[in-house]
């Protein structure tokens, strides 16, 4: 049985006393509007920040700024030796938020946990078909097959039965799609025929209560007076929706917001120099890569993939797209901060002669054309896709490969890449739960190769065996060893050009305290205040 840690709540209480409760609103310049507030219907980080990190909570929580799990709405848990049963003991005295249209009559209990999971799991549940597009995260994490049942033992004890051992399961339960909702509120909405209000007038146990949402303008919250961890430092939290990152920075400089998310890599140095601003930075759990379609002629030959890796000037790419110190060169399939990262594997030195020789050996004719897909518009994992594509094109031209760049709108690129229409594609991945499985299974497993999400369409027996065994194993040391084996295979086979592990930055005013940048890219302001 794992023991409870009250570290979180004590730290929060001490923090509140230390900086005092601020009546001044904490204004955060965010990058987009949330799609809604019923997080289980959505997958985007911005929606998770606006709902799961403010209004809702989960059985398990991440310690701020890390991917270490600590008790959340569950005080403790027991895992059966076969890894198939998890019993959670719920925290007593946790109150759901009171809003204009709902006043809870009881504390959070097992019924709420059951409702939150069964709604997504059970097709006969009255709320199951209320989500028109289903439960995308739940389904993409294969929870509909993983969860055999969720049962109530008593009012404060819940049992989860799994269909297979799943080592990252506890971490999964700290993710937004496992948030706990009020069954009582849901019943009230169902009876009154106002089910859509679960998405627009959310109720949770979290530190902030939604007070107003104006699409593309602002999301306003007030502190939850009944929050079980005590009072939070900011009485009012406002997300000022500011799509353009240049404008976010100017607003921060003018003190129209105190925190600005996702500054451009180009602006980092100027933020560092500004006496009124400061930066929080972290090696994020993100990777950017180019997947090479191993089901295509020539690229199915490992020598061709090795040659492409040898010809590409990774350092120049990082310098041009991210700038010095804003990303590190990618080596394997996941970033170095995660379990089992193999430090013995290094990037090969750029060698055009060797690359040419390998291509010749593989019979690739001079001037062979490969199509390269890149999305229009940048993202954190790839700030300038076209520039990156042009750099790869220029490097490969030096070894006799012509690259046909196709810049596509994101949705179209996803569709075509999943169909395997590309030879190479720029892609990126941000981790969800801090577990290596969350990188390798969705992007490199054989199942993903079959359904197209593994853009390299690479299915390797040795790699598959290692990651499957690691997923089922609960011993961290053994898992680390298995992931090292997998990385060795990856390094020999080179289905990707691992481009970069981008750093994550958040800019803020000097008087902001208690913000923890998060390696999983979510943003939580429970402990943040303005001095």
């Amino acid at each position: 049985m794992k023991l409870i840690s009250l570290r979180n709540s004590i730290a929060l209480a001490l923090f509140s006393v230390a900086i005092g409760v601020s009546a001044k609103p904490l204004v955060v310049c965010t990058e987009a509007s949330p799609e809604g507030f019923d997080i289980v219907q959505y997958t985007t980080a911005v929606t998770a920040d606006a709902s799961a990190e403010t209004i809702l909570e989960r059985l398990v929580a991440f310690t701020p700024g890390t991917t270490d799990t600590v008790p959340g709405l569950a005080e403790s848990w027991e895992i059966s030796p076969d890894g198939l049963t998890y019993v959670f003991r719920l925290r007593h005295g946790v109150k759901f938020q009171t809003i204009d249209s709902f006043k809870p009559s009881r504390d959070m209990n097992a019924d709420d946990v059951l409702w939150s999971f069964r709604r997504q799991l059970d097709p006969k549940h009255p709320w199951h078909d209320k989500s028109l597009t289903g439960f995308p995260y739940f389904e993409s994490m294969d929870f509909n097959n993983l969860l055999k049942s969720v049962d109530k033992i008593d009012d404060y004890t819940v049992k989860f039965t799994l269909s297979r051992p799943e080592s990252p399961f506890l971490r999964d339960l700290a993710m937004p799609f496992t948030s706990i909702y009020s069954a009582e509120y849901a019943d009230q909405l169902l009876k009154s025929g106002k089910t859509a209000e679960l998405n627009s007038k959310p109720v949770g146990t979290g530190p902030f209560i939604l007070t107003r949402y104006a699409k593309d303008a602002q999301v306003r919250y007030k502190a939850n007076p009944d929050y079980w961890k005590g009072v939070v430092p900011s009485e009012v939290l406002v997300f000022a929706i500011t799509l353009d990152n240049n404008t976010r920075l100017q607003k921060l400089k003018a003190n129209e917001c105190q925190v600005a998310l996702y500054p451009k890599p180009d602006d980092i140095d100027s933020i560092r120099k500004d006496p009124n601003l400061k930066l929080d930075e972290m090696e994020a759990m993100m990777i950017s890569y180019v997947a090479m379609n191993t089901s295509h002629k020539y690229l199915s030959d490992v020598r061709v993939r090795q040659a492409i890796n040898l010809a590409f000037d990774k350092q120049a790419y990082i310098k041009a797209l991210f700038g010095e110190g804003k990303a590190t060169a990618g080596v394997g399939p996941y970033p170095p901060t995660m379990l089992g990262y193999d430090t013995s594997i290094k990037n090969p030195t750029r060698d055009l002669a060797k690359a040419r020789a390998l291509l010749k050996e593989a019979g690739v004719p001079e001037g062979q054309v490969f199509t390269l897909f890149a999305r229009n518009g940048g993202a954190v994992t790839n700030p300038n896709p076209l520039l990156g594509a042009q750099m790869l094109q220029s490097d490969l031209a030096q070894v006799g490969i012509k690259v046909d760049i196709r810049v596509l709108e994101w949705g179209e690129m996803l569709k075509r890449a999943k169909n395997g229409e590309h030879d190479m594609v720029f892609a990126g991945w941000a981790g969800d739960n801090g577990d290596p499985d969350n990188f390798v299974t969705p992007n490199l497993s054989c199942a993903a190769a079959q359904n197209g999400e593994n853009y390299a369409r690479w299915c390797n027996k040795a790699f598959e065996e290692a990651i499957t065994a690691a997923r089922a194993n609960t011993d961290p040391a053994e898992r680390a060893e298995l992931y090292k084996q997998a990385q060795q295979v990856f390094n020999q086979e080179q289905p990707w050009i691992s481009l970069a592990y981008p750093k994550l930055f958040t800019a803020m005013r000097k008087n902001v305290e208690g913000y923890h940048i998060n390696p999983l890219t979510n943003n939580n302001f429970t402990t943040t205040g303005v001095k």
Partner: protein
Amino acid sequence: MLSFIARRVGLLIPTFFGITLLTFALIRLIPGDPVEVMMGERRVDPEMHAQAMERLGLNKPLYAQYIDYVGKLAHGDLGESLRTRESVWSEFTSLFPATLELSIAALIFAGILGLLAGVIAALKRGSLFDHGVMGISLAGYSMPIFWWGLVLIMFFSVSLGWTPVSGRIDLLYDIPPRTGFMLIDTLLSDDQGAFLDALHHLILPAIVLGTIPLAVIARMTRSSMLEVLREDYVRTARAKGLSPARVVFVHGLRNALIPVLTVFGLQVGTLLAGAVLTETIFSWPGIGKWLIEAIGARDYPVVQNGILLIACLVILVNFVVDILYGLANPRIRHQR
């Protein structure tokens, strides 16, 4: 006049159906569907995908989907957003006032300054002022909006601190949306300072959005005025000994306004469609950004009906301009 109006109304009906067909077809021509885009790079279970498509009614043949769409339209049902689950009408009515407010402010700015600059430039033809106005308006017309907006923000908002960087009002004010027009809502609220603050927030976005229309109106007014001032009736008015102001504004500008009015009407469409960049730079919650995001998300009901609503407005504005034009110029309304 009535037959003139009837002819114009008759043209509206096929235009309306053309738009429904075009938006319906175009959004479906783009690869990817709402469920796939929502899942992004994540795994899409084929069975779950099929169920979701069925719930959304997107598994039906295209013609059936179109009939459903037009049938709902006939009942005044614009459907709901696939992403936010909000009704398209309520999203439109919550965002459109912001775009309209900004567009009106931009048009007032462009109209007043453009007319004034154009008239003076025409009167002082060949002078330094004339060359200056024409040069500036050419620069204004060619100005990249994004760059222009950021330059103004950096200078007026960050360096001088005269105007706010972005948004419709300081976030310290929590103004309940009654009409959606911030200037009206702030007047209705008890907070005295809120109206001035909202007005303050409107200045830079209105200047940025109004820059291109200003240039167009100034150039059009100048050339139209020059033409009119050469007319015999203007010479006659002058010969009659009328005051220069009366000659210019009553005899000259009134007649010169006809082409300017047309351009003004066309600018309304340009403003509504082109506000997206200004809205992005100034975090202005309008319909431009809403539509762009909806296209990215393959939010079919929002794209179809959002564009339809805007098109209807543009058609309406042009219709009104047509009528005004007909009223102002009898030769036009009698043309067959």
